[in-house]
């Protein structure tokens, strides 16, 4: 509002940035340019607050626990982020993860397939599930919400059918499948290899999105699909590749899930699809596509983990933890709407 009155010199019709902004407008512009600042600040503040509330919060054992809890959702959120960046959504990610974990574990347990081929089989299954989503969305032109709502049920049913609703115990599997749950120690903190995989995955995906043409095309397709098509981007292919890549990422989550619960359970990860969306949204990625970052989703997953853990340590009932996460989501989306209204 201050911009119209304050332009001292006329910059000409095609020119010039406006000067003199109100402090609030400055914050809006900052968040607009750097979407991850918001979640980073929230995470830091919540860590400080919870550390003050409970002595146990910053102890190595507790930090290790938070990281373990976040690893599964954090990796799922990486796949979810690239889909949401294209203005899509994936409700089936948890189901793909569970189906993949069951296939890897059961085939290995029943046929004695060694770890490496079992993992590769898992990646194949995950990618294929993602491809099915992508095909339905690009070829049949169905909305991603409906497609993945459907495949959520299909994949979950396949998982129950193939597993015969039985859990496969860790002792029946090759040790490679359980490796993600193993730990090493840094400065007294036990860290699982699963959390390391999550961090590396976030780094790789962030690099790819920022530095490759494919990354630009993912953002452009989510921003304005028709404009991207006219610019010569094959938006159908971009979408297909995004859903397939997300499927492969979910296979990684499946591996981490097996390590985390030291078994493969057909009932695991039922709500992880919504948790991954929560992490993405709190991480500052816009549900309308074209805006956001992978790092934000990691921060979002950590914020949820820290909130739940911190409130639990402070003796707050689970129902209030859930309520707090709910409020966070609404605050994050309102903030996104406000940031989107940024004026030039």
């Amino acid at each position, binding site marked *: 509002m201050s911009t119209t009155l304050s332009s001292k010199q006329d910059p000409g019709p095609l*020119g*010039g940035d406006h000067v003199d902004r109100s402090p609030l407008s400055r914050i809006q512009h900052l968040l607009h340019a750097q979407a991850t600042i918001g979640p980073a600040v929230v995470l830091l503040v919540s860590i400080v607050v919870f550390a003050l509330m409970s002595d146990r919060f910053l102890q190595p054992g507790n930090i290790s626990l938070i990281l373990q809890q976040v690893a599964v959702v954090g990796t799922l959120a990486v796949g979810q982020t690239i889909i949401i960046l294209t203005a899509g959504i994936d409700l089936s990610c948890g189901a793909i993860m569970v189906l993949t974990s069951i296939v890897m574990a059961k085939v290995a347990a029943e046929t004695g397939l060694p770890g490496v081929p079992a993992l590769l089989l898992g990646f194949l299954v995950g990618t294929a599930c993602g491809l099915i989503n992508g095909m339905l969305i690009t070829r049949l032109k169905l909305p991603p919400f409906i497609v993945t709502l459907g495949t959520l049920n299909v994949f979950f049913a396949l998982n129950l059918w193939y597993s015969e609703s039985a859990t496969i115990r860790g002792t029946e599997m090759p040790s490679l499948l359980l490796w993600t749950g193993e730990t090493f120690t840094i400065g007294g903190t036990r860290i699982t290899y699963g959390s390391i995989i999550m961090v590396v995955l976030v780094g790789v995906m962030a690099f790819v999105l920022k530095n490759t043409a494919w990354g*630009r095309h993912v953002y452009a397709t989510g*921003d304005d699909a028709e404009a*991207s098509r006219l610019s010569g981007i094959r938006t159908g292919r971009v979408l297909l590749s995004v859903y397939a890549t997300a499927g492969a990422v979910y296979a990684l989550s499946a591996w981490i899930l097996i390590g985390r619960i030291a078994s493969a359970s057909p009932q695991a990860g039922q709500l992880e699809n919504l948790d991954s969306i929560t992490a993405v949204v709190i991480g500052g990625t816009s549900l309308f596509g*074209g805006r956001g970052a992978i790092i934000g989703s990691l921060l979002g997953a950590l914020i949820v983990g820290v909130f739940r853990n911190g409130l639990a340590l402070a003796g707050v009932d689970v129902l209030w933890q859930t309520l707090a996460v709910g409020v966070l989501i609404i605050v994050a989306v309102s903030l996104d709407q406000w940031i989107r209204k940024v004026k*030039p």
Partner: protein
Amino acid sequence: MTTPVLQARGLVKRYGKVTALAGSDLELLPGEILAVIGDNGAGKSSLIKALSGAVVPDEGEIMLDGAPVSFSTPIDARNAGIETVHQTLAVSPSLDIASNLFLGRERRRKGVLGTVFRMLDRNGMRDEARRQLDALGIMTIQNPGQAVETLSGGQRQAVAVARAAAFGSRVVIMDEPTAALGVRESRAVLDLVLQVRERGLPVILISHNMPHVFEVADRIHIQRLGRRKAVVDPKTVSMSDAVAIMTGAMEPPEQAA
């Protein structure tokens, strides 16, 4: 007689029972600005879409420098050197100016970083974007790393025009470039159109705005009922006569142009 850079003969496009193009011709001469005007439904858009590869005509031929070409996608037309500034601009608001300029034809880094890690040459693209904007006299855009959504309507149009001018080697097509702009912004964009011609690139300008058309066009192609009704010289035909021909109130004068 000079060979037209871009020539269309007898283009036909039907959508079900509706005939959008009923054997339309078009000739674009080297170094000229050819305005295409016509009433709603006269087939302007279909004609332009056929030339830019966005639709495939049912009949007729398109020739580039006298050689027949056929475009099945916008990418084909682009590869042939025909760049189009669409009315919707076809820019991605959340990406920066440089990314938009190179959207769909990004440059990779040299060496292993580009071939194996597929890294983009961000600095190179920014420098080139800077050069292109400067070359068109759009000095006032400070930073090619700035997001397009922070730009005004005229600045966005300038980015889209700069992209077309940067990559168009044969023809630049502009669809209603001033439609959504204010008076001063329109003025600046028309100057851009003239600068593109000064670079030696012929321009096809589609517009509803008669004063704009008469100001910049070398020749005016009047489209009516899916056909080329006439091509007139803006220096000899008045604005009201052009409108009369366009609406069918008047027959065109004996074959001008």
